[in-house]
């Protein structure tokens, strides 16, 4: 019996509607609404305690929401017991059954979901193990495998019954960096091949940027911003997202005025910049941060008309293909990524000008203690 690697089923669409969950007096998930398109790869990104893991546990059914609803393909499931939801999951600790061989671990979901035909079980297990490149390891026990191999077994177990939704809870957290980078690409490949909806929880912004179609940045139990990686990177909605996702210059100052298309931020040392009104619109006098990505910043002569900010070079870091020039602007750090041939004879202590395209900058309400 030969079949296509992929069954007829594809990913499920998932909708979270006004979901709430409180532990004691901590609002772990505070009124979250979200649409996850069928077959997409969504990363929940946030620091610990932001509610991303609680959201995942709600999807899995390990906990029930206080209010709100979860819908798979528009059918409410928040009262459906975990084992009837038809989900696959990769745990942070892998949670492989230590008393079962690799084969029995991977066969477990098939047997629990009523597959009685031994030939079919063997076929599906072999298929799943081949997908994670672990063919030939069937008779090993989990503790005879390396961390990376255990991770692959966990993937195979989660995918073997072709679940329409796959949950991953920081699955690469315990691996070293090289292996993690390799697995990111592999998981992305697997996602493309199986077509299930993947929900991936991580606190690693690189993982989220590398792998996902959509990123949901979470903070204090709420969604700080949701969108494609490019949207979030290029147009963050607030200082938190700007800071959490990729390197960002955030120079604190105060709003001094605004017109129809722009607003002005002044810094302690008297410098002023004009930014487009695309970020948050703030009242004059409000504490605000200038946002611009280091790779959008170029060096200019201090007297050049393109120069928007002046600073004093405090550090020059060689990165191989470029330099990171760090300067002091209004008593705060400001960095620019500069090509090798643009660096010139720059040295520490030099006065330098920084330029950028206006639409790459934003003003955000500044939070005390932020960088």
């Amino acid at each position, binding site marked *: 019996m030969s079949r296509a690697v992929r069954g007829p089923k594809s990913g499920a669409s998932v909708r979270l509607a006004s979901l709430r969950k409180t532990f004691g007096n901590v609002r772990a998930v505070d009124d979250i609404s979200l649409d996850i398109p069928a077959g997409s790869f969504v990363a929940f990104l946030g620091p610990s305690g932001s509610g991303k893991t609680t959201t995942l546990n709600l999807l899995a*059914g*390990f906990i029930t929401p206080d209010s709100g609803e979860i819908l798979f393909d528009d059918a409410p499931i928040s009262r459906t017991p975990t084992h009837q939801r038809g*989900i696959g999951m990769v*745990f942070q600790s892998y*949670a492989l059954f230590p008393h079962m061989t690799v084969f029995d671990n991977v066969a*477990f979901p098939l047997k629990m979901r009523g597959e009685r035909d031994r030939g079919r079980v063997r076929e599906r297990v072999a298929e799943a193990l081949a997908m994670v490149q672990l063919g030939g390891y069937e008779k090993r026990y989990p*503790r005879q495998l*390396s961390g*990376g191999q255990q991770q692959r077994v966990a993937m195979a177990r989660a995918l073997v019954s072709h679940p329409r939704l796959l949950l991953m809870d920081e699955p690469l957290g315990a691996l070293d960096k090289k292996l993690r980078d390799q697995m990111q690409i592999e998981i992305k490949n697997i996602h493309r091949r199986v077509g299930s909806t993947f929900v991936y929880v991580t606190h690693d912004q690189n993982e989220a940027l590398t792998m996902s179609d959509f990123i949901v940045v979470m903070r204090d139990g709420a969604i700080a911003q949701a969108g494609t990686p490019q949207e979030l990177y290029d147009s963050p909605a607030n200082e938190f997202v700007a800071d959490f996702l990729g390197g960002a210059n955030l120079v604190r100052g105060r709003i001094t005025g605004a017109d129809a298309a722009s607003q002005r931020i002044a810094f302690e040392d008297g410098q002023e910049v004009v930014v487009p009104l695309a970020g948050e619109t703030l009242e004059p006098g409000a504490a605000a941060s200038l946002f611009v990505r280091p790779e959008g910043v170029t060096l200019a002569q201090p007297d050049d008309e393109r120069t928007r900010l002046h600073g004093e070079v405090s550090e020059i870091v060689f990165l191989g293909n470029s330099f990171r020039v760090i300067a002091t602007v209004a008593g705060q750090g400001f960095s620019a990524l500069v090509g090798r041939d643009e660096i010139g004879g720059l040295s520490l202590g030099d006065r330098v000008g920084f330029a950028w395209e206006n639409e790459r900058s934003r003003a955000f309400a500044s939070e005390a203690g932020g960088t």
Partner: protein
Amino acid sequence: MSGQADTRSASPGAEIAPRCRLSARINIRLLVLLAPISLLIALFLILPIAIMFNRALTGEDVIAAYVEVLRSPVYTTVFLTTLKISALTTIITLLLGYPVAFALRFGRPRYRAIVLMLIVLPYWLDFIVRSYSWMILLGRKGIVNELLIWIGVIDRPVKLLYSLGSVVTGMVQIMLPMMILTLFAAMLRIDARLMDAASIHGASRWRSFARVFLPLSLPGVYGASLLVFVTALGFYITPALLGGTSETMISQSMLLLASELLDWKTASIAGTLLLFVTSILVLVYNRLFSIDRLWGGS
């Protein structure tokens, strides 16, 4: 390992030799620390056993003496009774204790503390006190008989004391905390995420238990059962107080031989035989049930 993708092992520790010397020094200190307890064990455990062996294995007609003990229906009966009572106690303690330990493992921490307290509480009472309280409960005019008559199950008191039932009841009550605590400690080592992993991959609560939790708890079950069984073998006070003549256990016989009949030689032979049988049982048991080695455990 024939790993294909990622069988890198951690880089070997660079400074192995100095660490070895350091650990040797620590070992000497450890020996000094161990000396008092080693001395105590040597004087009060190993020496008496040596004396017992000496009594049991020397003198004229050693073999004849053993044959006589083994042939005597009195001792074989007592031996079998001892094994039977211990086995019954172990099985009943296990059946009663496992659900309690399981509930403790997954119960709320607040209730866990209270229940643990209640389990440990009887430990503060002496064996004898607890055995005597069973005499009051199970006596002809005891609470159990009165209650059964009041409900109307029986119309005159039945004999509950001085039977196999009363001995096993008393011993179960005494051994239960040990069983529960040992099982609970073993169950705490089972990762609760495994149950989540089972249920999300399609196993109902019952099947998560049967396929994942139960097998993983078996080493704990074997260990706790062995502990209870071996402890039960040497019970003396409870069968003496709650049992009749047909519930005489081997420790009682040995005491009778040694202190009443002053037949130290036969008492030593019985003791040696008990030690021998117990050791064989433990060895066989270990061979049969150390399944954790199968999946690479220590």
